[in-house]
């Protein structure tokens, strides 16, 4: 049985793997440096249990997601990042349940300021987008 957090991660990964700008250039659990840009990196954050949101059958969780957009361009790098941010937001917020019957809601938590590096053969830009997804699972199993 799979932890529902993994179900969410897989679903989000699949959703974000079809964006116009970044296409299939998405990864998670990455330990090696990126080679192909523009790209998205999906990182799993805290999976919190807020107080007072459980009963005898279920427990409610809030899974935090960090989605990082990367671009390599000599053009206006934040323009490219904003384009990706728009596509990511639409992908996650169009169906706030993400098509999963155990997901309660998806909430944007705000994006960090864009960063730029001029050390490489082209400018590299990066920006982190934060989302949280509320879901529930049974008291007996995180996968059910």
């Amino acid at each position, binding site marked *: 049985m799979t932890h529902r957090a993994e179900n969410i991660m897989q679903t989000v990964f699949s959703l974000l793997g079809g964006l116009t700008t970044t296409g299939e250039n998405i990864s998670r659990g990455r330990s090696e440096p*990126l080679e192909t*840009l523009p790209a998205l990196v999906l990182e799993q954050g805290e999976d919190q249990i807020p107080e007072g949101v459980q009963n005898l059958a279920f427990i409610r969780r809030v899974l935090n997601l960090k989605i990082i957009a990367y671009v*390599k361009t000599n053009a206006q790098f934040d323009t490219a990042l904003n384009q990706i941010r728009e596509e990511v937001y639409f992908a996650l917020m169009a169906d706030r349940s993400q098509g999963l019957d155990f997901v309660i809601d998806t909430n944007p938590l705000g994006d960090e300021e864009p*960063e730029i*590096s001029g*050390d*490489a*053969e082209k400018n*590299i830009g990066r920006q982190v987008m934060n989302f949280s997804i509320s879901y529930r699972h049974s008291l007996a199993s995180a996968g059910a």
Partner: protein
Amino acid sequence: MSLVVFNSDNGGGASRVVDVDQYTVNLPQTINLPLIGSAASTIAPVVSNGTFIDDAFNGTGPVNSQWLSHQNDGRVDSIGNRAGYYSGDVLTNPGDITEWFHGLSGTYHYQTVAFPASGFDEFVIRDVGIGPVGNPQGNHFSNGGFAFTGVMCHVDNGFSSLDYEFAVVGHRGAATATLECKSTLNGVSGVTDEGANVFTGTGVTHGDIRIRLMPDRTIEFAYSDLGANNWILINGGTGATTVNNKPTFGATVHIGMIIYAQGTTELPFTGSFSSFERASTQQVTAPALSSTATINDITLSQSLSAQSLTVPVTNSLAQIFPPVVSEVIPIQSLAIPVANSVVQIYSPVVSEVIPVQSLAIPVANSVAQIFVPVVSEVLPIQSLTMPAVNSVSQVFVLVLNEIVPGQTLVMPVVSVGAQVYTPVASLETPVQSLSMSLIASVSQINVFDISVVVLPQFVGIPAVVSVPQMFLPVVALSVTQSFSVSLISSSPVIHNILIIDPSVVSPERDSKIPEADLREMFSISELGDVAVISAISIVGIFKNEYIEAFDVVGSAPAFSCIAKDIEAITPAVARGTNVTVLGVLYSIKNIKNDGNGIVNLIFNEV
């Protein structure tokens, strides 16, 4: 005064005593041309045309020393050079002392040449004629007598007997302004003329004469209006003097000038010539060979003029042609023929100290051929052409060590594999045009090195369409008018083009490292690469090391070079300036000057 006795060897028993202070003895007049037609065989010399020194009779004074004289004892007065003319006055003629007829013989200036083995040997004598004393080039009015000036060919017999043919311009009684033709055999003459007024106009007593020495030891005479070259063969178009009293010539013959009169009716007059030139090509020809394992080892080491040297067509295997020419006078043409065999080597070496007008290597159609024309001239080569080749395993090595201009150097089209072209030109003076043609084959290397210190007008490297190819044109020029590299559509391709323009390097600089050290550090022969900025090539060291930024793989292209080279470029190099290195276009992102004369250009990839 020193006296020398010349004894005749023709059985006549005659001898002659001459004053060597007045005579010039020519050096041996033969050309030794050993020809080897097959292995372990020797062929005797076949060509000995002898020498002839042209004369335009410049200056004023005695006849030039190449002319020997016969009876130059004053019977023709004041004979010698007069500002561009050989002339002599016939003022008196006691006992017909000047005349050439039957047993009479006058004054004669001559040189000795050989009859050719083939073709003909041609001599042209300009403005031959008679005129009034004091106006030699004017026409001499006829008084009905006999007065002539012309060209005589005498048997080379030590004048032991009078055996000659001649054609002379002048008056012959009723035949005024004519050309008289005479043959004399053992002092008995036959004579005729071409009729009155043979030259265009009336009473014209000056014209040109042409003689041709034939292989059968006969002589053809012709005449023309002055400078018109409208040659008419004498004696009804036969070119022969007469059918009777013709002498028998030996291997060599005297040719020269006579002025004479019969009687005194036409006296006084002046006879003159404006030039006496050998117009024909002296041909030295090696025979065609058709056997296996043949060697033609042709060596010319004479001090005489070889106008043409021809190596024959060959049809055999394993042939080597090393014609070596060590002339000190011009060779007008040196040609190697078409070859149809395998394993052929052409190695013409020319070590001239004077111009070679043309050096041509032929088309070859065989395998394993090597052309190694080496030219070590110190004077210009007007044209040097390598042919198209269509075979495999061919090597062209062309070395020019000129110190004067090479007007044209053309490398041919090639269309096969495994070819190497190494044209190396180390010239100190301009190359007007230097081009390499289209190459469409694989595995080709062109190494092109020009160390010219003066202006080349144009250097072009051709289009290539194959792999893997390498062009290393290196140009170190003071001024380059045009430098182009054409379309290249293959990979991997290395273009390493260096242009060092000393004009952009001023002597003063503020670096702490001596410029010579910097130049060595950034030498193209070491780690150097070439960056092209605003069509200017700069030598430096290109780095493109691996980096990571934001956990993203990248590279850091940068180019280190001499700061002064960058500062000299116009428009000024700045951020955003485009730079091409190794075929990749970059934009300058930053310029870092280290203060020691080195600048580090940080690139963005475009």
